[in-house]
């Protein structure tokens, strides 16, 4: 390294340090501490309350044995899926999203790129590590109540595992990005690891590095598998080290594209503009509609809005289709987990289906993206919005069906099919309504409203309502059915009763959607 390069590195270090200091100076330390204090107090209290109130039964001996024996492989499969996602993201230039000015002035300067990119990469890894630890600790707080082992053991074990998963994902992405792996090779490597972990799950072995990492999550149930877990950790640490050292090879073209998108994404996230966040995330992932549809609709139908929806779905890129289906399968598995006693999983099932629903309301969201075009159509605005819900409900029904099949495979087929059949349509309708509310929410309209003057924090309520309703739409009928089954009453009947409330909620949301769009239209229809 010549003197000029050393001097440039010093300039880079000094400027970054100065910018950091300036940022810290601008922060209101007391305000920040107060916020952290409130979040910790409220979060901790809510967590303790929910965990205690759920009072889930302890897992039986067979369940514990199964979790100890098969858990690592299945959790490893999850790790492998995350690594696959990381590799694919890296092949598209992720995970770093640096400033456009940093690309223009630092990456085009005669400075070692790996050295200049290591700091932002480490910052991203640190953030992921912290988030993973918090999520793992929360999960550990639920786990120790149902499984043998001390609270400390479970909290530590799950915190370690949940910290390791995002780290593996990010380091895989760094590696793929720095080494310029092509999407095909990155996908093949990820699928290879996934297949290895699935083979472990099928054969009951622990040979894949991802499975070994899965051992971390069940450490209190493992005897003498510490070493295997350490091997898994060492494998991914080595992968991370290689990733960090090769990051200088990243594509500047991708870095520039991501820099522009990430800046917009941060702004949209800060104003809770869900629709823009979704659109930008798709662009970051290079997720574009197919030029040639999977199939072409025949004739000129009588139902243009219904056909418009299908035209959109038939151009879905494979990644989006796989994601929707995976969300359905995950929701089914989570519902089965909730049925067998881990109540909080019902909430996660709701969130999984909401992810699929947000993709499905794309045709409706596009009407909202272009209100002028929509307002000039010779149809009633509220009727148009309602008609846009039909095709997504049908597709979400198919996705939910995949979940029911999964739940049937994992638990009692008869109960799963019975309860699933009752839940299928109302769940699809409610979730699509929630997604439509999210996608058509205009954060800027809220900012200019009197509610914002009352408290800007009320925006979180507006953003949170569709999420809360999605969770309730799955959890309420599912848990009611579980309770009925435990008491020897008809589970299907209990679920059906709850679905009346779900459908009533969906009707209210449909009314609200129509009203909102009519209110915003410049020409009342």
């Amino acid at each position: 390294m010549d003197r000029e390069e050393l001097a440039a590195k010093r300039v880079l270090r000094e400027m970054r340090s100065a910018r950091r200091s300036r940022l810290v100076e601008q922060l209101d330390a007391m305000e920040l501490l107060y916020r952290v204090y409130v979040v910790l107090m409220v979060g901790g209290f809510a967590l303790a309350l929910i965990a205690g109130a759920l009072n889930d039964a302890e897992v039986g001996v067979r369940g514990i044995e199964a979790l100890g024996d098969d858990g690592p492989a299945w959790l490893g499969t999850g790790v492998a899926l995350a690594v696959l996602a990381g590799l694919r993201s890296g092949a598209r230039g992720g995970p770093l999203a640096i400033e456009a000015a940093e690309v223009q002035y630092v990456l085009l300067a005669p400075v070692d790129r790996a050295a200049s990119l290591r700091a932002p990469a480490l910052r991203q890894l640190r953030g992921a590590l912290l988030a993973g630890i918090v999520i793992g600790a929360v999960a550990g707080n639920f786990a120790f109540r149902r499984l043998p082992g001390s609270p400390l053991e479970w909290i530590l074990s799950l915190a370690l595992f949940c910290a390791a998963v995002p780290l593996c994902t990010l380091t895989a992405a760094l590696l793929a990005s720095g080494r310029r792996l092509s999407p095909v090779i990155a996908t093949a490597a990820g699928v290879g690891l996934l297949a290895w972990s699935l083979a472990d799950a099928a054969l009951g072995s622990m040979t894949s590095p991802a499975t070994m990492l899965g051992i971390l999550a069940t450490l209190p149930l493992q005897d003498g598998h510490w070493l295997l877990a350490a091997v898994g950790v060492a494998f991914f640490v080595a992968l991370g080290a290689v990733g960090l050292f090769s990051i200088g090879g990243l594509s500047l073209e991708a870095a520039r594209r991501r820099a522009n998108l990430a800046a917009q994404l941060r702004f949209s996230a800060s104003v809770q503009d869900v629709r823009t966040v979704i659109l930008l995330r798709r662009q970051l992932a290079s997720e574009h509609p197919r030029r040639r549809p999977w199939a072409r609709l025949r004739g000129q139908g009588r139902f243009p809005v219904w056909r418009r929806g299908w035209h959109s779905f038939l151009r879905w890129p494979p990644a989006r289709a796989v994601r929707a289906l995976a969300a359905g399968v995950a929701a089914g598995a989570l519902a089965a987990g909730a049925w067998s006693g881990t109540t909080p999983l019902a909430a996660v099932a709701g969130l999984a289906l909401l992810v699929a629903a947000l993709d499905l309301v794309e045709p409706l969201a596009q009407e909202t993206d272009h209100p002028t075009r929509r307002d000039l159509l010779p149809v009633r605005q509220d009727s148009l919005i309602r008609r846009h819900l039909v095709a997504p409900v049908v597709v979400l029904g198919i996705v939910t069906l995949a979940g029911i099949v999964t739940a049937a495979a994992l638990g009692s087929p008869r109960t799963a099919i019975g309860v699933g059949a009752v839940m299928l349509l109302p769940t699809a309708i409610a979730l699509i309504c929630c997604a439509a509310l999210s996608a058509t929410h205009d954060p800027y309209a809220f900012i200019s409203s009197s509610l914002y003057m009352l408290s800007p924090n009320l925006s979180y309520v507006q953003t949170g309502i569709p999420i809360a309703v999605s969770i309730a739409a799955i959890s309420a009928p599912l848990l009611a059915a579980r309770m009925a089954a435990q008491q020897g009453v008809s589970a299907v009947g209990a679920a059906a009763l709850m679905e009346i409330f779900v459908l009533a909620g969906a009707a209210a949301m449909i009314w609200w959607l129509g009203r909102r769009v009519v209110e915003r239209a410049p020409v009342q229809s």
Partner: protein
Amino acid sequence: MSAAHRPGSAPAPVLMARGLGRSYDGFEALSSFDLDVRPGESISLVGPNGAGKTTFFTIAAGLLEASAGSLSVVGSDPGSIEARRAVSYLPDTPVFYEDLSLGEHLEYVGGLHGVADGGTRATRLLERLGMDGWSDSLPSEFSHGMRQKASIALALVRPFAVLLADEPFDGLDPPSRDVLFELLGEARETGAAVLVSTHRPDVVAASSRCVGLRDGRLSYDGPPDAEALSLSSARPA
């Protein structure tokens, strides 16, 4: 002594493109593009919108990868340390750190390129561009034209052998345009090659050579005469 330094022979090219191409999902933005640029040359790159001018500049700057052919800058691959040292790229859309003042930008960029007298050089540049009172201001306080001038200062504050300026005259008032003509002329006098993409006939007329692009292909390479001037305002095919 190498051929490049032999008296009477042309100096070796500082930038050399051979069969250069770039496609986006099947669309050829640049195709079979050949170009030699020698030290001290002033080249105007002309052509209608979408002709491939920016694509060529971003490939030469190392921001974009070619899908065909080759390009070398001072004998190195674009994007290599040597090439980064040699090429200064002035983008068509100015890029700034939102939390750094103009003065801090100049100090930073100068420092990254090992400029010893960065402060003096920056002050002189800002004076000439009429931005001397704005050194402590943040880019968010600048008008469109001022952002362009700040971007010009950032491209010129560091040493370079090749300057790639993408429509640098856009948004400038007439006095600033004159200053930019002077600055580009001075850069050329120091032996740097200056490539400017433009739609302005006066910029074409002031250059020593004109290169025309159309639909991603080389359509003209010669003196900035009447034919070249007509290319600068050509309609897309």
